[in-house]
């Protein structure tokens, strides 16, 4: 019986049990993640996605003389794109010495084993699940703010940037930074939002970093008694100026991103500096497509459908004669923004 036979025999530590547990975890890591709000999950059948862009073509007919024919409306075909995703995966290993230390207090006592080991290994699996969800958060933010996906080789640390190919007009850059003394950031913001509403058909707010909002706040019209408007007042003033309910979403959330193929991380902001994105009506900018994990099909069958094959799938394996235990969590998930709902500007502040 190899070292990990205890783990294998314990049904709460089976692939199926760990996967079921992983899939019950909330997607947003105690409300620190927002990707499921702007990019709600969408089940898809394949890791190869075909997307069709919508056409913004609003032709106008003309009048004609009697007994003649009027304006021909030509057919316009939308652009299509094929998106190929690769999995998100995180893992951890337990080597023999660590397992020895884990098992020593409970050797032979199954009740203690359940109390101690069951509390530890599933907890470590939870960390894998949330690491995957944070990757979805970073990718969704990057896809929205920059129209790109940046993939880092988890072993070598090399990166590859892939563009969604959105219309360049939807990603603007302020000619002069809004922090410049000759520019009124508030007026620039209002004008940009108004153009954006025309482009995407309605908005409920804007997502930005705190420094960007402070620049807008600094140039906003003064309030009563010549006092600078508070954040709430700026929001109300913008709503009044635009004639719609409008909300500022200030995103200073930060995650620990690996710098290369090693274990060193750097705490980086999820939302890039200086970028403002208009939040469309309905809030969602696109979807997080979730494709089936092929290795999970058998688990789904064995659990009678308790496992969602498109959800996080957890697998564990023993090697080195049972002296090594590896646990990994996989998601086939990919953000797919709707190009027609994107309106982003680099404000320079």
């Amino acid at each position: 019986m190899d070292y990990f036979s205890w783990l294998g025999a314990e049904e709460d530590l089976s692939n199926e049990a760990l996967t079921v547990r992983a899939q019950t975890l909330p997607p947003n890591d105690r409300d620190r993640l927002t990707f499921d709000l702007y990019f709600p999950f969408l089940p898809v059948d394949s890791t190869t996605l075909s997307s069709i862009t919508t056409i913004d073509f609003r032709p106008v007919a003309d009048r004609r003389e009697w007994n003649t024919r009027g304006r021909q409306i030509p057919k316009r075909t939308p652009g299509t794109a094929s998106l190929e995703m690769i999995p998100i995966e995180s893992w951890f290993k337990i080597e023999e010495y660590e397992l020895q230390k884990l098992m020593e207090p409970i050797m032979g006592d199954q009740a203690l084993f359940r109390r101690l080991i069951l509390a530890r290994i599933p907890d470590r699996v939870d960390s894998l699940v949330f690491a995957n969800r944070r990757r979805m958060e970073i990718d969704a933010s990057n896809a929205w703010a920059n129209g790109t996906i940046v993939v880092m080789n988890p072993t070598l640390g090399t990166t590859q940037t892939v563009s969604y190919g959105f219309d360049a007009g939807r990603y603007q850059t302020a000619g002069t930074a809004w922090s410049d003394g000759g520019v009124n950031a508030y007026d620039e913001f209002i004008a940009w939002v108004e153009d954006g509403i025309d482009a995407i058909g309605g908005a409920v707010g804007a997502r930005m970093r705190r420094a960007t909002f402070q620049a807008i706040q600094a140039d906003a019209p003064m309030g009563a008694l010549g006092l600078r408007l508070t954040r709430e007042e700026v929001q109300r003033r913008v709503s009044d100026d635009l004639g719609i309910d409008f909300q500022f979403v200030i995103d200073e959330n930060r995650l620990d991103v690996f710098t290369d193929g090693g274990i060193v991380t750097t705490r980086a902001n999820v939302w890039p500096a200086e970028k403002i994105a208009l939040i469309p009506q309905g809030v969602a900018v696109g979807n997080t497509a979730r494709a089936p994990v092929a290795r999970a099909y058998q688990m789904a069958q064995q659990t009678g459908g308790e496992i969602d094959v498109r959800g996080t799938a957890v697998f564990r394996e023993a090697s080195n004669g049972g002296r090594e235990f590896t646990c990994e969590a996989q998601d086939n998930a990919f953000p797919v923004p709707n190009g027609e709902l994107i309106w982003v500007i680099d404000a320079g502040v």
Partner: protein
Amino acid sequence: MPIRITPTTPGGADYGHVTLGPVDHTVQVPINLTTRTTGEIDRFGYLKPGVVVVAGTIVGITVEAIKVANDNAPATIAALPTDFQIGVATIGQVLRHVVEDNLGRALTGGEVASLTGATSRLVLLG
């Protein structure tokens, strides 16, 4: 007794696993610990994972932190055995970035040469 909060142990990151994929081939070899540095033996006296070991024609890498001393003071290291037995992996894929993060330094030219040499069955990734 007045209320107080006393930090006992500092938190920190654990060592990363230095191999990608299963480690199915390990062997016990002697290692001269007196030649090891504080980058390879940590302050708690653990020989870190990712230490390159050459024993004759065997080229291996440590895969788990193993306690070899009480601390890593120079005098302590100098007094360690010259033929300490340790388990190393001899076949597998070595994550260079993780090794260097564990050791806190870049691999030396000699270590890289050992890992990529003719007698090594390890693949250095990175």
